[in-house]
C-alpha cells in the first residue's frame, strides 16, 4: 500500500512504468526499487529458500541480507532491493538459486579490457560518514570518488525523519533527511559519487574491485576511506524468516524512502532509540503499533522519544520478548512472553498478538569485510558493536592509508559518523597535500566536537569502548 499523505514527508514519485513479475503486470514508478514496487503491489514473498523452500521476503532493504534475490531479465540472484524497476523488466521469483541464463553472443573475452580508474581518495559508502569524508577532503583539494552500492546517496540519513540533538556542529534540530541533502549539496567538483556501484574487494596497494554498470572495474587509490556502515542483527525465534519480519531499517526504507507501508499492524522488538523512533514513524504513517517489546528491565531510548510513543497510547513492555512468529506463508501474529530477572521465560505469561508485521530493532553489527581483506588488525569490543578495525584518533587503521569511519568503526549515531568521516577525510588530505594550519585547526575542532558528543551519561558505553580501543592500539 502506498502512502499518500504523511505529516513530514512528501513523496515525489517518478513516471509511472510497468514491469512483469512471474507473468503478472506490476505498476511501478521510476526511481523505486523492484522490491519496493512489489511491496506496493502486495507481493511480500520474493523468493523461496535454497534448502527448505521456505517463503522469504526481504529483511534489510539495503543489500545485506540476500533474501530478496530474484531473476531479473535473465540474470540470476539479483538483489531486488538494490535495483531500480524499469519499463518492461522481466522479474521471476526464485526457488533457491536462479537459473544460469543464456548469453546472446559469444564475446572475445581475451580482448575484453577491465577498466582501471585512478583517484586520490576512494571512499566506500555514501552515508553520513563517507559523504563527510568527501566533503572535507575535497574542500582541501583532494580528488575523491565515492562508491555507493545502493541506488541513493545519504545512507541511513535518507530515512531519518526525526530531528537531531546536540549543538549546531552536530546538526541539531535538523531532520536526518535534510542533513543528508546538505552534505550532498556541499560537495564540490573534486568529488564524484557513483551509486549502484558496490566495492567487492580490496587488494594490496589500495586497489579496489568495484562493480560498475554490472562489470568489474579496478580503482587505484592513494588513500581509502571505508565507511560501509552496519547490518541489522537478527533475533532467533521460530519462523523468524517469514515474510513480514523486517529489520527496523528496512521498515524505514520502505516507509520513508519509497512511501510504502510495510503492513497494517505491527509489533516492534527492541526499545532502543531506533526501535522507539521507528515505532513512532510507523504511527505517523498510519500503521497500528500493537506494542514495543524490550527484554531489558529498562527502556534504552532517550526519554523524549519514548514519551512521544506513550502519549499515543502505545505500550512499551519491558522484560518481554517474542517467543515465536506464526502464519501461513506470511506473518499473521506472534506469541510474546514475559522474562524473569535471569532472562528466562516465565511459564504461563505467553499471549498471542495478531499482527502482519514484526519489526526487529535489536542492534547493529559493523560491516567489516573490506578491513579483513586489507589485513587490518581487528579487535572485538562489544561496547562499539563487536569486531572492528583497530584505529587511531585520526581514524587510520593499522594499514597505512586505509581509514574507517561511521558505524563500521563503532555503532554510534549519524552525528558521530559525520565527525569521524570528517576526521578521516581531513587526515587523508593532510597526508596527500601536506600539513596546513587550517587542517590542523579543523582536526582539533572535530576531535573536541566528538568528545563533546560522547560526554554525558549516554556516551558512557562509547567512552568505555574507546578506552578499550586505546589499549588495543598499544
Amino acid at each position, binding site marked *: 500500500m502506498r502512502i499518500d499523505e504523511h505529516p513530514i514527508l512528501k513523496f515525489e514519485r517518478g513516471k509511472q512504468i510497468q514491469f512483469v513479475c512471474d507473468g503478472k503486470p506490476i505498476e511501478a514508478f521510476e526511481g523505486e526499487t523492484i522490491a519496493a514496487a512489489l511491496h506496493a503491489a502486495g507481493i511480500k514473498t520474493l523468493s523461496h529458500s*535454497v534448502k527448505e523452500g521456505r517463503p522469504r521476503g526481504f529483511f534489510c532493504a539495503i543489500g545485506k541480507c540476500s533474501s530478496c534475490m530474484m531473476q531479473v531479465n*535473465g*540474470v*540470476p*540472484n539479483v538483489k531486488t532491493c538494490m535495483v531500480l524497476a524499469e519499463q518492461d523488466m522481466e522479474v521471476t521469483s526464485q526457488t*533457491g*538459486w*536462479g*537459473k*544460469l*541464463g*543464456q*548469453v546472446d553472443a*559469444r*564475446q572475445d*573475452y*581475451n580482448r*575484453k579490457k*577491465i577498466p582501471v580508474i585512478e583517484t586520490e581518495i576512494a571512499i566506500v559508502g555514501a552515508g553520513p560518514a563517507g559523504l563527510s569524508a568527501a566533503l572535507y577532503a575535497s574542500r582541501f583539494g583532494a580528488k575523491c570518488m565515492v562508491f555507493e552500492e545502493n541506488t541513493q546517496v545519504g545512507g541511513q540519513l535518507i530515512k531519518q525523519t526525526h530531528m537531531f540533538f546536540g549543538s549546531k556542529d552536530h546538526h541539531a534540530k535538523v531532520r536526518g533527511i535534510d542533513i543528508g541533502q546538505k552534505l550532498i549539496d556541499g560537495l564540490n567538483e573534486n568529488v564524484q559519487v557513483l551509486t549502484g556501484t558496490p566495492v*567487492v*574487494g580490496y*587488494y*594490496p596497494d589500495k*586497489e579496489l*574491485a568495484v562493480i560498475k554498470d554490472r562489470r*568489474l572495474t*579496478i580503482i587505484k587509490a592513494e588513500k581509502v576511506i571505508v565507511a560501509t556502515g552496519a547490518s541489522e542483527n537478527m533475533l532467533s525465534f521460530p519462523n523468524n524468516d517469514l515474510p513480514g519480519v523486517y529489520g527496523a531499517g528496512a521498515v524505514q526504507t520502505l516507509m520513508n524512502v519509497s512511501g510504502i507501508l510495510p503492513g497494517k499492524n505491527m509489533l516492534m522488538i527492541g526499545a532502543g532509540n531506533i526501535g522507539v523512533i521507528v515505532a513512532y514513524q510507523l504511527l505517523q504513517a498510519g500503521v497500528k503499533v500493537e506494542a514495543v517489546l524490550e527484554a531489558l528491565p529498562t527502556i534504552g531510548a532517550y526519554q523524549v522519544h519514548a514519551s512521544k510513543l506513550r502519549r499515543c497510547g502505545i505500550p512499551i513492555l519491558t522484560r518481554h520478548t517474542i517467543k515465536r512468529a506464526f502464519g501461513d506463508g506470511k506473518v499473521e501474529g506472534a506469541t510474546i512472553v514475559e522474562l524473569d530477572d535471569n532472562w528466562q521465560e516465565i511459564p504461563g505469561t505467553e499471549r498471542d498478538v495478531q499482527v502482519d508485521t514484526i519489526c526487529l530493532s535489536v542492534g547493529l553489527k559493523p560491516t567489516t569485510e573490506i578491513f579483513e581483506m586489507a589485513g587490518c588488525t581487528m579487535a572485538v569490543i562489544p561496547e562499539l558493536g563487536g569486531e572492528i578495525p583497530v584505529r587511531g584518533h585520526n581514524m587510520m587503521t593499522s594499514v597505512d592509508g586505509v581509514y574507517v569511519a561511521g558505524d563500521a568503526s563503532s555503532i554510534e549515531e549519524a552525528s558521530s559518523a559525520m565527525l569521524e568521516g570528517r576526521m578521516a577525510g581531513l587526515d587523508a588530505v593532510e597526508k596527500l597535500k601536506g600539513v596546513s594550519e587550517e587542517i590542523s585547526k579543523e582536526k582539533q575542532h572535530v576531535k573536541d566536537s566528538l568528545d563533546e558528543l560522547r560526554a554525558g551519561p549516554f556516551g558512557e558505553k562509547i567512552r568505555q569502548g574507546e578506552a578499550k580501543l586505546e589499549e588495543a592500539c598499544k
Partner: protein
Amino acid sequence: MNKNYDVIIIGGGVIGTSTGYYLSKSGMKVLLLEKDYLTAGSTGRCITGVRQQFSTPATIRTAMSAVKLFENMKDELGVDVEWTNSGYMFMAHDEAKVEAFKKNIEIQRKFGLDVSFITASEAKALVPHLDTDQLLGVAWCPSDGQASPFKVVLGYARGIRDNGGSIITRQEVTDIIVEDGHVKGVTTAAGVTYHSSRVINCAGPWAREVGLMAGIDLQVEPERHEALITDGVQYENMPMLVDYRADGGYFVQRVTGQFIGCFTPEVQVPGKDKSSTLEFMKEMSRRMCKIVPALENVAILRQWAGSYCMTPDGSPIVDETPVKGLYCSVGMSGHGFMLGPALGKFLAEYIVDGTWPFDMSEFAYGRKFGDKEAMA
C-alpha cells in the same frame, strides 16, 4: 593420563583422517594431532573434484578405488558427503592434445575405466552451455565426480572418535622422537609427549618440516594455487571442465549450485603464502567465461589460496621411511582429496598386515624421480 597409542597421525586433512579412520577401524588406538583445525591445510582449500583419468597404473587404480569409496561413503561413515558422478571432461583444442588424451584413454581402459574420446558436438550435447569454439573433442569419464571435502573429513573424524580414537586440534607437533632408528613418539608445542611405535606424516604442505624432525628429508615442496567460487545457480549437472591451454583453467558446478575452480599459474609460486591476488580473480573469471559464456551473469562470491605439496614427478610418496615405524603419505601434488580415501585405506592395510593391494612402487619412498605426470 595414558599417552601411549598404537599409532600417531600428524595432520588433520583428508589424508590424516582417512588413514586414521581405517586404522581405528582395524582396532588400533589412534591419536591424530592437527596444528590448526581439521581441513585447515590443503583439503579445505581444494576445488572438490575427484577424477580417475590419470596416466600411470598406480594412480589410475588408486583413483578408481577412491571413487568406489566415495560412492559408498554415505553408508560407511553415516555422513552425506555430497558425492556426485558429475564426470570430468578434458578439452582438446589441438591435435597434440587429442593424441595425448587418446593414448591415456588406452591405458585407463586397460584397468576397466569407462572413459572415451568424444567429439565437440557430443560434448556440447552433454553440456549445452559449453563453448566449443576450436574444440576438437574431449576425454570424457562420466564416473569421475565431486564431493564436499569438509563433509568427508567430518565423516572420517567422527569415525575415528566412534572407533575409540582421539583427535586433538590446535596441537602442533614440534618434534618426532627417534631412538636407534625406531620412532618412539612425538612432542608438541604445548610440551606434551605422546608415545607410539608408529607415526604417520600426513602434514600436506608442512610435510617436509615434519619429516626433518626425524631426520628424513622428503622431496616435497609446497606451491601456491589460487581458487575462487561463484554465487549459486540451479544445478545443471555440468562436469569438471578442464582446459589445459596456457590461458585455460578448470572448474565444476558444485551440486550445491556454485561454480568452483582454479588454474595452474604459468610461473609456479613456491611457498605456503595464502594471500589472494586481483590478477587471479580477473584472469580466472575471464577464463571461465571463455568456456561457459553464460557465467558472465554470475557473481564471484569469494577467492582464496592454498598449497599443493609437490613431488618432482607429481605422484605421492606413500611408504614407510628409513626410520622404522615412521610412515609418510605426502606429496599429493594437487590430488590429495581425490586419492585420499584410497591412500588412507591402502596405508592402513599396509601397516596392519604388511601388504599393498597392487604394485605401489610408483609411490615408493626411495624411487628415482623421472618424468612428470602427463595429466598433473
